[in-house]
């Protein structure tokens, strides 16, 4: 599976015919087919080509909305869900 740096991910912002990729918890999703990501923006405030993990914590929906979109890679150097030692 392809690994993306944040800089590489930023190229997929939905502008100028580029696909729209967003990252969430280390996975990179292709949301180009979504009506709600037209032109690389989502609900005014969110842009494609970025890691939305923090933004989704504040969103009126969970990360499950991304499950219907294909995972096309992983975001490099991002570690999630690491259990803490007691």
């Amino acid at each position: 599976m392809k690994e993306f740096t944040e800089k590489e991910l930023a190229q997929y912002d939905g502008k100028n015919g580029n696909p729209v990729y967003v990252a969430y918890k280390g996975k990179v999703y292709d949301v180009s087919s979504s009506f709600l990501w037209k032109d690389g923006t989502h609900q005014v405030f969110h842009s494609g080509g970025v890691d939305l993990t923090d933004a989704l914590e504040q969103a009126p929906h969970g990360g499950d909305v991304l499950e219907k979109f294909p995972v096309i890679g992983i975001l490099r150097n991002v570690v999630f869900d690491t259990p803490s030692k007691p």
Partner: protein
Amino acid sequence: MARVAREMVEKAGINVDQLVELLVKNAAAELTTYYYYTILRCNLIGLEGEGIKEIAEAARIEDRNHFEALVPRIYELGGKLPEDMKAFHDISACPPAKLPTDPTDTMAMLKVLVEAERCAVRGYTHICNMTAGKDHRTYDLSQAILNEEIEHESWFSEFLGEGPSGHFMRRGETSPFVSKFLK
């Protein structure tokens, strides 16, 4: 435009241009949903479909009312509607509530209806969170719309077997929460 009203919202720390864009997108969602629900309602026929037609019609009329109620606030804040209706459709805050491939599939119809309502509930919750304590008029309006969208969601979700809503259908009137903005 209501210049001082806009200034008050700006002073409260809200990016008014972003808020207006969000209101326009939600107004687009309401008007397009009104259109798509017209088609859904026409196709809600037969033994199963007829039972849903009445609430689909109430939701349809109330979504049109939401559009009507949102428009003055958009202009008060210095915004405007796009001149091109096709562009207006395409910036909608929610996906088109299109007729399912099989219009006789009542469950598929209900899923379209409930997903449209859930998108609206998320959208107005976001606007309420954004404006609470800062833009009292937009908050009041969004909260009124949110109340109705939540009722719509629960009506349709009952038919999907997700549990009772505790509501009874409208008794002749529509928009019990939003009507104060339509006078």
